[in-house]
């Protein structure tokens, strides 16, 4: 069999085509196994990759700045910790003074209630009823005698507590009180009792009008915390310098 030169050339071309075919197929397969996409979508993959890299750079920047923020905050927190530690007991004391914590201790329990004396015809019923001013007078007397915490019918007296009345109802902390009125005070028991029982004092006067009044010394009284709100809409703290 004669071999023409052009047959050799054709053979060479065939070799080239076969080689190229196999290389192409192997490349394609390696792309599909490693990237999970056909080569036609390589551009898309590249685009996604660049986008992801850009996002990555942005996130890295954010991370760095957040780390810096954390470091700054930690420094600040370390500086503030001593101040906070000093503030803690002070704050607790202030809360106790403001009546925001339940307290217990020795003291007196004063109980007053409306008189059960029958009214004589034509007599003013006010004469046998306890008025808000009576309750207030007892509270004021106790505070004046050094009571550290006072509650009326388990309603704690705070700095903004008002005792008032609406019609026949006595209000304390805007809550209605009902007789008997039990006024608990923590402080030196003997001193408090002496103060409320003082001659010409409020209890003396109530007894004179036949109101049932009791004063008990208590070894341990427990007073609840003030549960109302403090609204400071108009009053503002004034700087010492100003």
């Amino acid at each position, binding site marked *: 069999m004669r*071999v023409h030169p*052009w*047959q*050799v*050339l*054709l*053979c*060479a*071309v*065939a*070799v*080239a*085509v*076969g*080689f*190229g*075919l*196999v*290389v*192409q197929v*192997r*490349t*394609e397969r*390696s*792309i599909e196994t490693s990237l999970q996409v056909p*080569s*036609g979508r*390589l*551009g898309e993959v590249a685009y996604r990759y660049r986008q992801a890299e850009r996002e990555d750079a942005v996130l890295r920047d954010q991370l760095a700045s957040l780390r810096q923020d954390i470091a700054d905050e930690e420094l600040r927190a370390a500086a503030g910790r001593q101040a906070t530690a000093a503030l803690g007991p002070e704050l607790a004391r202030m809360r106790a003074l403001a009546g925001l914590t339940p307290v217990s201790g020795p003291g007196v329990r004063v109980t007053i209630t409306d008189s059960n004396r029958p009214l004589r015809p034509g007599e003013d019923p006010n004469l046998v009823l306890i008025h808000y001013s009576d309750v207030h007078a007892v509270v004021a007397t106790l505070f004046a005698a050094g009571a550290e915490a006072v509650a009326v019918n388990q309603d704690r007296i705070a700095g903004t507590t008002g005792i008032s009345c609406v019609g026949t109802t006595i209000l304390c902390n805007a809550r209605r009180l009902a007789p008997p009125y039990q006024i608990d005070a923590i402080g030196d028991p003997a001193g408090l009792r002496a103060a409320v029982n003082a001659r010409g004092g409020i209890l003396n006067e109530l007894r004179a009008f036949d109101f049932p009044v009791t004063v008990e010394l208590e070894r341990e009284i427990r007073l609840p915390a003030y549960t109302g709100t403090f609204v400071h809409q108009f009053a503002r703290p004034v700087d010492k310098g100003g």
Partner: protein
Amino acid sequence: MWLPILGLAAGLALGLLVSVQVPLTYVKYSAIAILAAVDTLLGGMRAQVAGRFDLRVFLSGFIVNTLFAALLTALGDLLGLDIYLGAVVAFSIRIFNNIGFIRRDLIGLIWRARPIEAGET
């Protein structure tokens, strides 16, 4: 006649033995180029079977088809058009045509003693 087929087999074996990969950037273009090359090779075989093989036509067709297929695809990428689809369709149709002609010519060669009626299949 059998030499090109032998060459093709040798090329396939060589490709399997040597681990070469097309750079990722050119995969798209080389795929089209190889499709064109396959088409040209089949065209050459067909011409040979038909007894009107021209080496110049074959070689020029091989080179020009391969290059232009790749260039057309690149142009399509530049324009944002899927021009390579056109090349794929054109070359695929030609490959089928060539295979059909080769098949019929081969049948004609082998069974020359008993001529078959002209026509498809």
